[in-house]
């Protein structure tokens, strides 16, 4: 049993890594990884919504009629996202300012609805919570890695600590850099995962 719980968490990092294997949730992945800290914050925000929505959906899915399950799930997810948005505005205004628009956009992050549909509605509450933690941490780790690479190349710093004077390679802070870094990391990840 312990082994099964553990594998529910670790699969988010390797076997079902949302960014590098499932390739889901690309919008926040590309847009918010301009620095390591931004990527980390976005990952944690998604983790929060994912765990709570997985728990609630696994509890209510047996009584939800099939034809309305998507609207019901979306309402649940949207509620948690709005709760998160209000909490961030109140207690972490600086993080809210940098992530801004991308917090409400967690509603349409396909990872969350994807996990609800593929996992939470068929499993119990405990397993769904673990699945949420696993996938959420995997997403957080991936975003942070992309953020670190883009920050090193684009701004010459890591987590805001500058190791070169002046600017890095600007393109990496902007959208084209996001695609390039994501592409190379995808290749690297899949090469390592195959071994």
């Amino acid at each position, binding site marked *: 049993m312990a082994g099964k719980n553990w594998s529910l968490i670790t699969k988010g990092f390797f076997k079902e890594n949302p960014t590098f294997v499932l390739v889901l949730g690309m919008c926040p992945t590309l847009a918010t990884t*301009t620095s390591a800290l931004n990527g980390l914050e976005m990952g944690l925000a998604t983790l929060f919504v994912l765990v709570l929505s997985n728990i609630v959906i696994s509890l*209510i899915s047996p*009584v*939800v*009629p*099939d*034809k*309305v399950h998507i*609207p*019901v799930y979306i*309402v*649940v997810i*949207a*509620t948690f996202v*709005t*709760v998160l948005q*209000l*909490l961030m*505005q*109140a*207690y972490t*205004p600086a993080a809210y*300012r940098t992530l801004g628009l991308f917090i409400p956009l967690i509603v349409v992050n396909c990872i969350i609805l994807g996990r609800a549909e593929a996992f939470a509605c068929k499993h119990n509450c405990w397993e769904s919570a673990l699945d949420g933690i696993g996938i959420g941490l995997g997403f957080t780790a991936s975003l942070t890695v992309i953020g670190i690479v883009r920050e090193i190349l*684009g*701004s010459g710093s890591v987590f805001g600590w500058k190791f070169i004077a002046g*600017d890095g390679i*600007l393109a990496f*802070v*902007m959208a084209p850099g996001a695609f390039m870094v994501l592409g190379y990391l995808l290749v690297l990840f899949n090469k390592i995962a195959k071994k």
Partner: protein
Amino acid sequence: MAAKNSILSMALCLTAVCLVCGAVLGSVYAVTKSPIEEAAAAEARAAIAEVLPEGGTISEAMQADGMEYYCSLADSSVVAYAVKSSTGGFGGLLTLMVGVLPDGSIWNTKVLSHSETPGLGAKCTSDPGFIAQWKGFKGNFAVRKDGGDVDAITASTITSRAYAKAVAQASELVLSLNKED
């Protein structure tokens, strides 16, 4: 009890879910309302304090020409103004807090919000040379390319122009306020 997939049970299910979610949102909103307002007010106070000379009591917000401003009072006379000034930047609205002395010269400036390009225009919040030139700025509020005295950020002339325009707006407002007195 109606069958699980009948119209009635679908409607009931959606209604119940929406009611519960609405109640949750309402209560979270009520709980976070005052912390959110406090956080916003603290941020505004910090921005005002940063652009004004030290000492002086800061007044309530006032309106003129569609801009919001605050007075810094010492011995019941106004020693400086903090003006919230917005212009269109390269990527959207650029909003500054500008500290202006009564003669229209600039004490200090601070970006409140912007949507400029990261690494280019967004440097208006971090470029040390660009920020420092605004302390005690006097002269023509136009970038050097347009014959003014503002050193633009490299490769971000549009942002620099917008920034200069926002500062100029604030300065003009203060001059017009003093003319009326």
